[in-house]
Every structure is written in C-alpha cells, then in structure tokens.
C-alpha cells in the first residue's frame, strides 16, 4: 500500500476514487436480531456506524486520530430509511456517497444492500463534525482530510442524488 505524506502522524489508506465508496462489508450478527425475527432498528445504525468508520479511515480520521489524541468525529444528525428486512447471517454491502462538506463537517449517505440478493435494505444520511480532542469543540479538518474531501466531493457529485436524501418525516395524506 502506498503511504501518502500527510500532516497526520500515522499512515493513511490510499484514497479510493470509486464513487460511491464501496469498501464496507458486514454480516448480520445473531445479537442484532429482535422479537420480530429480523435485524432491530437500532442495529442498522450500529452497522452504518461501522461504515462511517470505513469512510473515516479513508479520510485519515479513524481510530488512530482519537488514539493519538488529535481529534474525534461526532455525528450531529442522522436520518434512516428502513426499506427491507434482513435476517441473521445475511451478508451486507454498504456504499457511501459524499453529498456535501465544509471546513468542519461532511454530509453523506450510506446505502445498505443485501450483498447476495442485491436489494436495498436501508439508508442512513448523516452529518459528521470534526472535534478537537483537547477542547472537545468543533474544529477545522486536518489539512490532509480537507484535501481528500475536496478530491472526493466533485467525483461523488457526478452521481445522481439518492431519493432517500433530504427527506422529511410525515404521513402523506391522500
């Protein structure tokens, strides 16, 4: 793996320019199943949070970023759509599309698919904020993270906007 020179004190993965990001795989665990015999609503978010870790690793703000006491990332807001059930042992494929970013935040949407059958199981749209470790307050992204976001954003912007993005919850009356 090529290690890029960055302002972060640990090696970072080579940037993946495939859009949407299509690196994250998982399996529905037994402990994620509820009374209804399917993955519980809370555990979809657990699964998506691990896909956020995959994104953060790409951006250089993964586990090492907090381990080295540089910073953290906090989710400010999240919207999930539950499109179809998944069962214990089902293989999952999660893609990630960057929708927007600024100097401190990134707005993105994950899509979870059944990896074998291909159907959409859920989506999760999020805003993630960069946090300074010492002050625990919002702060600008590291230079390398900002360079990577600036590189990825125009590539992801060529994708169609997912219809699950930007939704408001309501009962639509006929």
């Amino acid at each position: 793996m090529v290690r890029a020179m960055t302002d972060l004190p640990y090696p970072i993965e080579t940037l993946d320019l495939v859009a949407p990001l299509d690196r994250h795989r998982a399996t529905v665990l037994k402990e994620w199943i509820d009374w209804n015999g399917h993955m519980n609503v809370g555990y979809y978010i657990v699964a998506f949070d691990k896909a956020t870790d995959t994104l953060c690793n790409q951006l250089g703000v993964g586990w090492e970023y907090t381990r080295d006491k540089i910073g953290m990332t906090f989710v400010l807001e999240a919207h999930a759509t539950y499109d179809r059930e998944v069962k214990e042992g089902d293989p999952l494929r999660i893609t990630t599309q960057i929708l927007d970013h600024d100097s401190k935040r990134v707005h993105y949407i994950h899509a979870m698919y059944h990896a074998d059958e291909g159907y959409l199981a859920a989506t999760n749209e999020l805003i993630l904020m960069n946090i300074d470790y010492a002050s625990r307050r919002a702060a600008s992204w590291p230079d390398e993270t900002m360079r990577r976001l600036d590189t990825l954003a125009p590539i992801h912007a060529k994708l169609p906007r997912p219809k699950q993005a930007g939704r408001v919850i309501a009962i639509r009356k006929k």
Partner: protein
Amino acid sequence: MPDTLLNEEPLPYELPELDLVAPLDRHRSVVKDEWVDWNGHMNMARYMEAFDYASGAFHTQIGMGRRYIDNKLGMTFVLEAHITYDRELRGGAPLRFTTQLLDHDAKRLHLFHTMYHGEEGFLASTCESMIMHIDAKTRKSSPFRKVVQERLAKMAQAHGKLPKPPKSGRLIGIPRR
C-alpha cells in the same frame, strides 16, 4: 376459524390504564457501559436502541407491547427515523424520555421522542419516527385493531394540544451562511 383475532375483538390480555399526560413521560433508562465508545461517550448508534425502548413504552400504552408480539397478533416496523444529537452522555447517566404522538392513520404512527439527562435535565437527543403496523402472518402492512385505534384517538386528542416540537420535520443538510 381465523388464526388471528378479528380487528374488532378485544386483546387477549389486560391493558394498562391509558396515560393521557402529554407528552407521555413514563420511560426511564440508564446509559449502559457497553454503549460507550472510544470517544468516551454514548455511541451514536446506541441512541436509536435507547429510543426503541421508549417506543416500546408507547406501544405498551396503546395495547401493543411484548404480549402483542408473543400472541402473534402483529408487530410494528419502523419505516423511517430522524435523530438529532444534542449533547453527549457518559456511561451511567440516567435518562428520561418523553414521547409525543404527532400524527397517525389506520396503519401508521408518527412519533417524536425526546431524551433528557434524568438528573441534570438537559436535552441530549431527539428521535422522530414513522412506524407501520404489520400483520404477523402476511408480514405486510395492516390496520391497527379497533381497541388500539380507540386508544390512539384519545392520545391524539391530548397530544394535539402540544406545540409541534421545534426539532420535528427536519431534513439533513449543511446550512450556508
């Protein structure tokens, strides 16, 4: 003889006295140690788990708690959820939840949960959700039974007097100055 009770039939268990305090203010919890992540606070994914229990408290009120599932009368699926993360919580923090019924129809519930620190009182998070009633046999959407609809109508009347929560109806985006 149908496998499931008809919609007009009563539920085969005793229902709690309906709590018409609005918002519903019954659910309490504590941040479990295993919910804390490497940032030293409750992990974002666990808020949804915590809110799901608050949703369970609401379901119990309308007659659709655990016994509804165990009796194979039906279930509910969350179709959509929107969470705001307003303040961090540490392991062991006591939690208080309130739930406002924003809207409903024959098959769906539109709920708004608010999570507070149980002692300090600050707002920690909100969760707005859309929930669909599902038939146990077909696993497809189906109307709530009559007794549940009656309870929902009474709650809707009480909850309809509350102002719309400022954090309801949000969509996600980075605001530009």
